[in-house]
């Protein structure tokens, strides 16, 4: 029930921001559509609504956004350098990475972060055993532990504090 109320609130805020108008017709349409969405798919938003009440998670999320933006800018400059260099300094390969995160949302955000940060992107996720298969543009090591430390060492702790 709490999950449905949260998804109704989210959908309604999104609707108001997109129409950017406070006429009663727009608001009525938004309420009807948000109720329909909350009735149809509301129960898959979250399984543990009590997580939304812990304030420390929001502070870690704000910190994570800044880390993510900085890493993304660095990654793009690195990628642009590798594309424009005449000798194509790439050494590609698919390596395996071990993670301790288990919940679905944490794994999704971890995979998205890996895709948008320097030189790596996720090919497949094995969520039962906690392995990620990562395509690395410039392979430094094939060992699982060292690759884990280099690729996801920074993000794993913060994501664990946000989602687990």
């Amino acid at each position, binding site marked *: 029930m709490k999950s449905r109320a949260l998804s109704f609130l989210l959908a309604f805020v999104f609707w108001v921001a997109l129409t950017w108008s406070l006429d009663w017709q727009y608001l009525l349409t938004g309420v009807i559509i948000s109720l329909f969405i909350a009735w149809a798919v509301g129960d898959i938003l979250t399984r543990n609504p009590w997580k939304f009440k812990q304030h420390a998670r929001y502070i870690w999320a704000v910190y994570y956004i800044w880390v993510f933006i900085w890493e993304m800018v660095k990654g793009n400059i690195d990628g642009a350098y590798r594309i424009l260099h005449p000798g194509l300094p790439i050494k590609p*390969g698919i390596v395996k990475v071990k993670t301790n995160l288990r919940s679905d949302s944490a794994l999704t955000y971890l995979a998205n972060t890996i895709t948008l940060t320097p030189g790596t992107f996720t090919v497949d996720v094995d969520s039962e055993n906690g392995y990620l298969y990562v395509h690395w543009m410039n392979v430094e090591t094939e060992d699982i532990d060292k690759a884990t430390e280099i690729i996801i060492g920074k993000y794993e702790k913060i994501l664990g504090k946000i989602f687990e």
Partner: protein
Amino acid sequence: MIDLIGYIFIGIGITFDFIGCLGLVRLPDLYNRLHASIKCVTFGTCGIMLGVFVIHGFTDVGIKAIFCALFLLLTAPVSAHAISRAAHLSGVKPWEKSVCDHYEKDK
């Protein structure tokens, strides 16, 4: 003044778009192409949308531009992931100078 900042953001975004498309043509195999292009093009388009937001401010256009950039940041990695997994399962081989392929081994 505020227009100039917005134009600078749009210029940076278009530069990264162009570099990403250059990577799409230049790099040797599917995974590397996907790699460079999806990263650079997503960043470039988000830069353009940020420029639109800076120029228009907190009006309906600016808010819509921010939502568009947010949506792009959430969905572009997912589509890249889907394409690469499908390509690997359908039998597209990595470049012959690749160092290792642990995914092929474990499948």
